[in-house]
């Protein structure tokens, strides 16, 4: 136990190498992409919409496919009203107000690790990001579940409650719904991969070294 804690302490105190710091800076730069690209993308295909009604979910907004001849978000809401689904309104999603700031905070924390250069700072970012990522996925699923299950009982068309897919394809009434991550989600994944890589590039196996008092203990060669 003592040895393990000693190992852990040594690990957390490790300085970050130049490669690791560059990787972190790179990961932070990649995250900028999340401010301009969609996080997730859903498409609704049917005989009437062979090109699919498209819904792009950003970290800060909800955007339907738009063309001079169609406004997909309005169309999706018009269709959903028949089954009594609540309209998708940007104002209903508090996520859009705080998500960009959470990502900003993660970026700052990552840059802090670059400046201070300690493994512990980097691990903080990885742990927080993991928590944030899993929470967001759960929250997304919960949102979809809520929309598909809180149907107005007075709706003209009664359908069985359903959950639109978070990932993959599902047939709902006359629509085939596809749901997949988009660029911003890949950027977040890349952020995570680069941070893990940064950890690996600074990680060193401790070896037995002679301490100042002359004992043999785990440490790093000077």
């Amino acid at each position: 136990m003592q040895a393990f804690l000693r190992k852990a302490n040594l690990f957390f105190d490790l300085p970050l190498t130049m490669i690791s710091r560059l990787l972190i800076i790179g990961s932070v730069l990649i995250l900028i992409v999340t401010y301009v690209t969609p996080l997730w993308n859903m498409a609704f295909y049917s005989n009437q919409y062979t090109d699919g009604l498209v819904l792009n979910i950003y970290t800060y907004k909800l955007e339907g496919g738009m063309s001079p001849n169609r406004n997909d978000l309005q169309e999706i809401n018009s269709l959903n009203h028949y089954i009594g689904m609540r309209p998708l309104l940007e104002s209903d999603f508090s996520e859009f107000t705080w998500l960009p700031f959470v990502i900003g905070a993660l970026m700052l924390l990552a840059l802090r690790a670059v400046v201070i250069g300690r493994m512990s700072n980097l691990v903080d970012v990885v742990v927080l990001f993991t928590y944030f990522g899993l929470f967001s996925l759960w929250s997304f699923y919960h949102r979809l579940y809520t929309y598909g299950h809180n149907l107005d009982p007075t709706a003209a068309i009664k359908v069985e409650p359903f959950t639109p897919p978070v990932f993959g394809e599902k047939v709902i009434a006359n629509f085939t719904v596809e749901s997949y991550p988009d660029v911003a989600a890949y950027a977040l994944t890349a952020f995570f991969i680069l941070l893990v890589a940064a950890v690996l590039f600074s990680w060193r196996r401790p070896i037995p070294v002679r301490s100042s008092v002359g004992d043999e203990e785990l440490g790093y060669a000077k």
Partner: protein
Amino acid sequence: MKSKMRRFTWVVVGAGCILAVLLLPQSCRSKTRVQQRTGAAESAVASYVAPGDVDPYYLFYSGGHSGQIYVGGVPSMRHICTIPVFSPYPATGYGFDKETKEMLGEYTWGDAHHPALSETKGDYDGRWLFINDNANNRIARIELRDFKTRQILGPIPNVSGNHGSTFVTPNTEYILAASRFSIPLPKGTMAPIENYASQYKGVVAGISVDPNTGQMALGWEILMPPFNYDLGDAGKMASEGWAFWTCYNAERATGKLEVTATQKDRDYIVAVDWKAAEKAAKEGKVKTIDGVKVIDPKDVQGVVYLLPCSKSPHGVDVSPDGKYIIGSGKLQSITTAFNFEKIKTAIAKKDFSGQEDGIPVLKYESIKDAEINVGLGPLHTQFDDQGFAYTSLFVESAVAKWKLGTWEVVDKIPITYNIGHLATAEGDTVSPDGKYLVALNKLSHGRHLTVGPSQPECSQLIDVSGEKMKMLYEAYTEPEPHYAQIIKADKIKAIEVYQKADSKHPNAIWDVKDARVERKGNNVNVYMAAVRSSFEPNKIEVKQGDRVTIYLTNIEQTTDELHGFGLNEHNINVVVDPGETKVIEFVANKPGVFPFYCTNFCSALHQEMQGYLLVGGGKPGQSQLSKAAGAQQ
């Protein structure tokens, strides 16, 4: 250094794997899901009718709020002509001469919904075509002898929003009519909308038809609860003597019907024993409301029953043998087949589950044979000669083919987009032809060459001769066909020339020597002949304020030698077919000289076919534009 390289490799491989797993589904993401277009050449041949050849079938589709009927050919889907019915149509001079002006009355539009070809023994006989006006509660009769509207009956008393019309009984004894919008009766009565459930009334009716002339007259009406009566069909063969209508809003709701009228899981099909209704009317077991014999089901038993049907049904369609009544609840995914034998048994045994305003409601379980899972939004069903039924699916944008008796859905074909009604060749008669199905689609979503925001309607031709339905062709019409009927071409024997020998018009002239202008006081009668390439007389002299009547006869006896009579600045354009006489009436209010000319191209000297109306005795007037310019200064 070496260990760093190895670490680097591992990181790259690891990251690559994670990304690959995430990106994999991206490759299965569809860009579009387009229907396969195969067998184009085969389809083209199947719908091809060579120049000079004619189609084996006529397609009569309603023109909706254009107020007209469109005539097409099947399988070419060519639009051949438009028959004006409820709206003036300068192309044929309809609504400009005395007879058609009087027929149109005060209305310049109608909402033409459901054409019905006249029937003998449940089969089309090619004599007349009837069409309803949902807006002004009228029914028109078109003679198929010359494709002309000859009678418009209405507004029909007590019927409000004549949507459930014009389905005919097997020997065209009656044309069905029904109220889509219940109102207080008789018309002219005001009752607060809050009293809708008790004071508003619906009506289903039989409009009688003279078997020889086709002349329509008021038959009987039945007072119904304030539901919204939608579509109908007459029983045939096994169910002859009965008439059926669907209705929605069994909730008797008002306001936002989209919500308030869709709360019950079942609405009704109205089943009327019309022979009993006829008898009751004959025996005087009626009230007279606004001059019509109206049967109140509270007073007369055994005339009308209600069959519970899946939610908000649209179409009710009787199978060719008359044994099954097919009801389609548009808000569910099932079509219900009711067994007419079971309906009769249930009536005999008084197997009722309730009543509505004294009308017995039959027990659903006792009368239904099957609930067929056809798909989303079933609306309307037609039949073929092989025992199959075809149901349009609005929500799903598809047609489902299923078997009568086994109730098995055997095929489905996507259409573009949102099909309303459908028509198979003679598909609502006792002996359908099969072969072709025309899908009347509500939305075209810009599949055609773009024409701006106001879009045409899309009709699609589907081959139903084989096991699998095959999409052959699509064509566009103006808004908006609601229903169509397809009749074998050889059943219609139309003339192309009005024979001089048959002319009975008292004021027709057949020789240019008889052309003349006669004055009787302020009335000026013009006996005019039109023949290539002149009007005789070609000069009409009148005084301002004279009432002018022109009896215009086209004395041609050759097919397609039509002449038009357009009078400048008088809003008059009358077209006379070969051998036809039309009456043009107007008051010569404007002084001056006004040219008239042939509007329908006739010959090499068509441009020269003209004359003058000279109106004397007045002061030169001022043109509208000049007046407007003066007002601006």
